[in-house]
């Protein structure tokens, strides 16, 4: 057997918890060669991030424990190297893009500095490192790179932060890039750019790319090989084509068949009085206008999808409506009353009817509360919803509905995977059975099968309880399956809105057209064809 650039052999990782041991990774083996892209697909919570962290030596031991296995990098076992040697490898030879950009960026340092630090930590002169950082920021498509260098993480949108994370990892052109869900928060056009950037680097430096993703389209687009994980084990491996067409393991088959975007689009609905209608909603950050007068309505029981460019102000709309930030102008009429002028006391009354799933699930869960406490807090706040004796039962029910286990109720947020946390956040929003839920990239970190399950759940709630959704997403197939109407945003403006059929079948605006065209198909064959077309077009 030839020496691989990176090889995992029989890796097992477990965690100590109050409730016993959690076996996160069990006997996982895979390898990655120079210039190759290996995709890890799999169920949310199946150990993808943990195995990647093991490569980076980032598992806290204890409570974590690597019980078996080897991680061979150019033939050397990383697990036996001393700290100094690991440090030399980290960042320079192997870099990682973390799944959860917000918490992985240091809140108190400007992002330019943080990106440059990757280089300076390995001896690059500061000047050079800054230049490189600036270049990378520009490369990942952040507007006004010079200003961005000096800004702090909280001043960026979710997708922008993810791209900063990418820039940080690429700073030293590593030999191996471990990308943990690098494009979950990116709209398809930006995603395409980022993927092509990665591809370019790969060609240029022979970088090995380990891509953890749930997006079959991405796999189809760039992966050379893929492995599928479930429950801490690798259940199947092969080329994307093989997996897509000839999957043998039932889980893989379930995954493939769950790929969204193939269902019926929802029929147009008769107009009714809107639940929420925004008029001229504006938000300025200093001299920068993040939102330039958004106007839209949300009807009761409808799903309004908001798609658009990363950084176009989608999350801002949500934050303004919920009064998490004060708007610079405009109105947000909730059943005819302006939310933006309500006093905190009045606002508290409406809150029950208006819930949100945040884009960064990790940060939105209180790390000191158990899952049970997090979800049941809704009822503790609104006493009339559910008697206390039924809380536990209902929490378990909600957890099961979003694909978690009842016993997860007593765990704490940090003990979950990214996708699991996102589901906890969803369960929390559902607990109150509000009239409107704003989902900000609420299913982006879920593998397609769970995603399908959650979407199904949301759909059921919409139909049965008449809950309306504002569904901020970049995943067009999901939007296509779930939304009633679609709103397209770009640069702080709503460029187009209409029924889902109208947008998907007959987009008017060029941006919308571009967006739709950039979508990736889960079928590697289709995707290969498109790629060829694209290349031909460029030539």
């Amino acid at each position, binding site marked *: 057997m030839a020496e691989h650039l990176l090889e995992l052999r029989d890796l097992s990782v477990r965690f100590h918890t109050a409730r016993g041991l959690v076996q996160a990774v069990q006997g996982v083996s895979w390898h990655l060669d120079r210039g190759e892209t290996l995709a890890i697909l799999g169920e949310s919570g199946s150990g993808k991030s943990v195995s990647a*962290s093991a490569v*980076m*030596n*980032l598992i806290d031991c204890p409570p974590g424990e690597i019980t078996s296995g080897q991680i061979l990098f150019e033939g050397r076992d990383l697990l036996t190297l001393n*700290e100094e040697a690991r*440090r*030399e*490898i*980290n*960042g*320079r030879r192997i*870099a*990682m893009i*973390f799944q*959860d950009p917000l*918490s*992985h*960026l*240091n*809140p*108190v*340092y400007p992002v330019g500095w*943080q990106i440059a*630090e*990757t280089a300076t*930590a*390995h001896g690059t002169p500061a000047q050079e490192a800054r230049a490189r950082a600036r270049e990378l920021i520009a490369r990942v498509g952040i507007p006004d790179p010079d200003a961005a260098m000096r800004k*702090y993480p*909280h*001043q960026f949108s979710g997708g922008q932060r993810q791209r900063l994370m990418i820039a*940080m990892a690429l700073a030293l052109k590593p030999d191996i890039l471990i990308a943990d869900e690098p494009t979950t928060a990116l709209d398809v056009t930006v995603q395409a750019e980022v993927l092509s950037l990665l591809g370019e680097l790969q060609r240029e430096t022979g970088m090995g790319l380990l891509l953890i993703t749930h997006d079959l389209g991405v796999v189809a687009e760039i992966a050379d090989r893929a492995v599928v994980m479930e429950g801490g084990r690798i259940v199947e491996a092969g080329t994307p084509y093989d997996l897509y067409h000839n999957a043998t393991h039932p889980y893989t088959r379930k995954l493939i068949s769950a790929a969204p975007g193939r269902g019926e689009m929802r029929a147009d609905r008769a107009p009714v009085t809107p639940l929420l209608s925004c008029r001229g909603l504006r938000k300025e950050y200093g001299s920068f206008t993040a939102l330039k007068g958004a106007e839209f309505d949300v009807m009761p029981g409808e799903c309004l999808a908001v798609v658009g460019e990363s950084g176009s102000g989608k999350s801002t709309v949500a934050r303004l409506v919920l009064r998490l930030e004060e708007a610079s102008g405009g109105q947000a009429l909730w059943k005819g009353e302006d939310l933006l002028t309500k006093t905190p006391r009045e606002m508290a009354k409406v809150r029950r009817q208006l819930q949100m799933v945040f884009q960064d699930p*990790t940060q939105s869960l209180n790390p000191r509360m158990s899952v049970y406490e997090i979800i049941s807090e809704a009822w503790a706040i609104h006493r009339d919803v559910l008697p206390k004796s039924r809380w536990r039962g209902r929490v378990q029910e909600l957890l099961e509905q979003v694909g978690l286990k009842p016993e997860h109720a007593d765990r704490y947020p940090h003990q979950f995977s990214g996708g699991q946390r996102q589901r906890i956040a969803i369960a929390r929003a559902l607990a109150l059975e509000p009239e409107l839920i704003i989902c900000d990239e609420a299913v982006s970190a879920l593998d397609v099968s769970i995603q399908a399950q959650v979407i199904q759940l949301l759909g059921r709630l919409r139909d049965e309880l008449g809950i309306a959704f504002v569904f901020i997403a970049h995943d067009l197939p999901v939007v296509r399956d779930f939304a009633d109407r679609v709103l397209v945003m770009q640069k702080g403006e709503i460029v187009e809105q209409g029924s889902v059929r109208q947008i998907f079948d007959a987009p008017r605006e060029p941006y919308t057209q571009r967006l739709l065209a950039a979508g990736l198909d889960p079928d590697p064959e289709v995707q290969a064809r498109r790629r060829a077309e694209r290349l031909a077009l460029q030539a």
Partner: protein
Amino acid sequence: MQRMIGKRAVSSLISLVGLVVLVFFLSRLTGDPAALYLPIDASEEMRQNFREIHGLNDPLLVQFGRYIGDLAVLDFGESIRKARPAIEVVLEGFAWTLQLALITMTLVTLAAVVLGSLAAFRVGSLFDRLASMLSLIGASAPDFWIAIVAIVVFSVGLGWVPTSGTGTVWHWILPIAVLFIRPFGLIVQVVRGAMLTALGSAYVKTARAKGVRNRPIIFVHTLRNAMLPVITVIGDQAAALLNGAVVVETIFGFPGVGKLMIDSILQRDFNVILAAIMVTALAIFVMNLLIDIAYALLDPRIRT
């Protein structure tokens, strides 16, 4: 920023005036300086005369009006005990106190931050336990113990440093060493605690993934995030020093403002009390402003 400072200056001025009014009236409720200043066998006539000279016979409001009037032209009145302008006496002492506080707090901050951070980084290790224990003992031991034992050992026994007084740099060593101990212990503990929490953050993992060395991870990445409570406590301890390090001043014969304040309070030398409070309050107000600015500098999320 400028607007914030301006607003702050106004509100601080109001509180300073409030403080002065409060101290002026409350302190005058606490007894007659004549009884304390004059010898116990002084006659009533002498006392009357004394009160007349110092304007203590007038109604309180008249006295207050006069005081404020004088204050407007920066006349802080005379010290009864010292027969000198109160502000002069106070500034003399305050200069010493300020130096002492500055030097001590600088040393404390440096030492405590480094030690506390390292202890947190190696939580549970022998180093951590030892650093915690020693700093705790220092912080909870009576300060005069340390002072007197230090004098007995280092001055009388070993003859390394002078026992007390002022003059050379050597004279500063013991007072600073004694003053150092309590804030050091407290701040080590606060740093250690805050760092412990901060070191568990995800961005520390990012830094490790970048291959950043331990030292910058501790002192650059994490420390700044842990600094908010730390500088607050540093401020509190500095304020305590600015208010006067009484024990050190009495034991080491250090001419600071602390003993002056105590003597003035015990002797009801109102003008000195007021002047001293105004000067130290001003220093503390400015320091708190600086600390509030430091919050914003340290953590961009607070800047709004």
